[in-house]
């Protein structure tokens, strides 16, 4: 059961991290994948099913940008719904982290 919770936790955090990155600036999947792979040790392939789900959920939308080298890049940007979801999830995350920190602090 703990494994299931860990998976669910990581899944929620991944989506939250993607929302956070996109709230700062539009980005393309490779950039998002390599950043998250480096910072939170996520498998690079993970980003693609996730982006697809977020797109079908209406949290992100895509547009193409010409690049000097090679074919145009597919950029992702937050939709208003994605922005709202980010605000809500960020608040939930902060509340959760401070609750856990309190417990950890009490145990120390």
């Amino acid at each position, binding site marked *: 059961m703990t494994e299931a919770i860990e998976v669910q936790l990581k899944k929620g955090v991944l989506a939250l991290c993607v929302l956070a990155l996109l709230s700062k600036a539009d980005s393309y*999947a490779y950039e998002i994948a390599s950043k998250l792979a480096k910072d939170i040790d996520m498998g*690079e392939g*993970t980003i693609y*099913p996730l982006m697809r789900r977020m797109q079908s959920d209406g949290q992100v939308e895509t547009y193409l940008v010409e690049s000097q080298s*090679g074919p145009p890049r597919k950029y992702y940007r937050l939709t208003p719904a994605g922005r709202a979801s980010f605000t809500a999830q960020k608040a939930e995350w902060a509340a959760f982290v401070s609750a856990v920190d309190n417990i950890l602090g009490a145990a120390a």
Partner: protein
Amino acid sequence: MTRAEFLTRLKRGLAGLPAAQIADIVADYEAHFNEAQEAGRSESEVAAALGEPERLAREQRAEQGVRRWEETKNPSAAASAIFAVVGLGAIDIIFLLPLLMGVLGTLFAFFMAAIGIFVAGGAVTTVGPFAGPPGGPAVAFLLGIGLMAGATALAAVTTLLTVGLVNGLIWYGRLHYRLLKPAIETQV
């Protein structure tokens, strides 16, 4: 694994999805290889970082199956969602499968019973009043209507149970999405 091998295995895994969707998914991974190449990474290194193409394909299929179920709650969407989620290979779903089949069989039997009772009710309503039933024609007529109403209620409850069961299974499948496991396991 080379880029070509990765893409071939990915396409094989996606076979059966709409062509436009396959092209879209494949284009994402091709772009990934292009970007990585520009960053100076080797094909085998990138393929390793992406993970098993078959697993990525299964996850995309599961997502697709679940979306179809969410859009149209019909038996074929339910079947494809169930198979897609089972295809993710979460081991405990496979253990649960015999149980699941039993429950689905029971629900199916309920549906059949509902249809049977409905037909019987219809017969009692139309034929009963003319067959000289005990208690008079009106009683037979009302009895028939009652049977049909009961059958309809049974079918409705069974439908709700089935929808709930499939939703629960999808929730369970998503909880076990294997795409997150590599993220955790690479740390070990």
